[in-house]
């Protein structure tokens, strides 16, 4: 089973939920940090990183001796990553989404692909739970194309019975890359108007992908009841409410797992996993 943990709004507690869920289970599992712009699950889990792999993205290379400057490549590229300018053909590798469209439409076969380094995937093992594995992506500084790195991290899926994905915030391409094809999306939000606004967008994205989802309300007690009302209206189960508690904030600020600072949470996170399992099985049976 693959559970992705997403949020819409940033800073709601995705990593808190992902790392503590991971540390509470005895299951055969792996945690993949797909927030490749700023992966931080490692701060709480202290993985032993044993392997590093480079991620390259293909970008176009033009053979000017074959090119007739017909501009078909320029017309198909939505991102302006290739342009004919007078006799020159200019490419912008940093804008390229590696779709290969320019190569396909080129009548002269003047375009080939060349690799560009965009990030790294690191893999290793975790001490808690014993035998669990860990993976994270690191987008290289200055790069903007997160999805290829996320997809490489997700290549690690399937080595364990359970995969927990810590997704990036937002609702754009990187989040979709982290959620697509997972069995369940756990949405973490906070009970504030900002939390609700971005949660609404995230729920729409999850619906498009047709993945069952459930909600964790973090910092419960803060803000208003807008999120609860929304969840009820949209029929999204609230699986866990984590109270707005100074002890939790204090543990987090020291990079300490909640289940270590407040051990009673271990059973609570186990219960969260049981609820998710039930929802996934129900979807499978339907």
């Amino acid at each position, binding site marked *: 089973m693959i559970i992705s943990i997403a949020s819409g709004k940033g800073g709601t507690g995705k990593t808190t939920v992902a790392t503590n869920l991971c540390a509470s289970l005895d299951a055969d599992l792996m945690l993949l940090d797909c927030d490749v712009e700023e992966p931080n699950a490692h701060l709480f889990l202290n993985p032993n990183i044993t392997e590093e792999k480079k991620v390259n993205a293909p970008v176009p290379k033009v053979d000017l001796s074959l090119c007739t400057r017909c501009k078909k490549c320029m017309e198909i590229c*939505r*991102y*302006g*990553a290739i342009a004919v*300018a007078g006799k*020159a053909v200019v490419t*912008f590798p940093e*804008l390229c989404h590696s779709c290969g469209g320019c190569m396909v439409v080129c009548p002269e076969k003047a375009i080939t692909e060349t690799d560009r380094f965009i990030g790294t995937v690191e893999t290793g093992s975790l001490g808690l739970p014993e035998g669990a594995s860990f993976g994270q992506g690191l987008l290289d500084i200055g790069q903007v194309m997160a999805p290829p790195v996320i997809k490489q991290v997700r290549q690690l899926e399937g080595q364990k019975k359970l995969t927990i994905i810590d997704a990036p915030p937002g609702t754009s391409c990187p989040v979709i890359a982290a959620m697509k094809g997972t069995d369940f999306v756990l949405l973490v939000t906070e009970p504030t108007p900002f939390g609700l606004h971005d949660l609404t967008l995230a729920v729409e994205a999850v619906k498009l992908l047709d993945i069952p989802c459930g909600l964790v309300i973090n910092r419960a007690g803060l803000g208003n009841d807008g999120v609860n009302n929304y969840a009820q209206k949209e029929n999204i189960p609230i699986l866990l409410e984590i109270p707005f508690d100074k002890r939790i904030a204090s543990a987090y600020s020291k990079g300490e797992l909640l289940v270590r600072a407040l051990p009673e949470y271990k059973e609570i996170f186990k219960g969260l996993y049981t609820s998710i399992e039930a929802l996934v099985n129900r979807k499978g049976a339907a």
Partner: protein
Amino acid sequence: MKIAITSTGKDLDAQVDPRFGRAAYIIVVDTDTLDFEVIDNSENKNAFKGAGITAASAVCDKGAQVLITGFCGPNAFKTLDSAGVKVANDATGTVRSTVEDYKAGKFTFSDSANAEGHW
């Protein structure tokens, strides 16, 4: 010689548009005869991405050797530079007065972009 000037309107008395990629129009003027051709940039103005690059390509197609505008970003500059089109920035006033200023040698060509890229 032909020079391209970004413009808010379709004739020589229109004001210069300070933007390049998302300018309303780009007017390509022959500095000797003042004959001109108008590039309607309206479609590009609302482009999703790469407005500067597309506008730069259009300027090159019209055979302009110089572009005069307000601000030129890094991708547009790289495109124009690759094609050997020189860029002068900080233009104000009308297209006609800009042509005169250019002929009077009041512009200097820049060797890099003078505006940040847009993300």
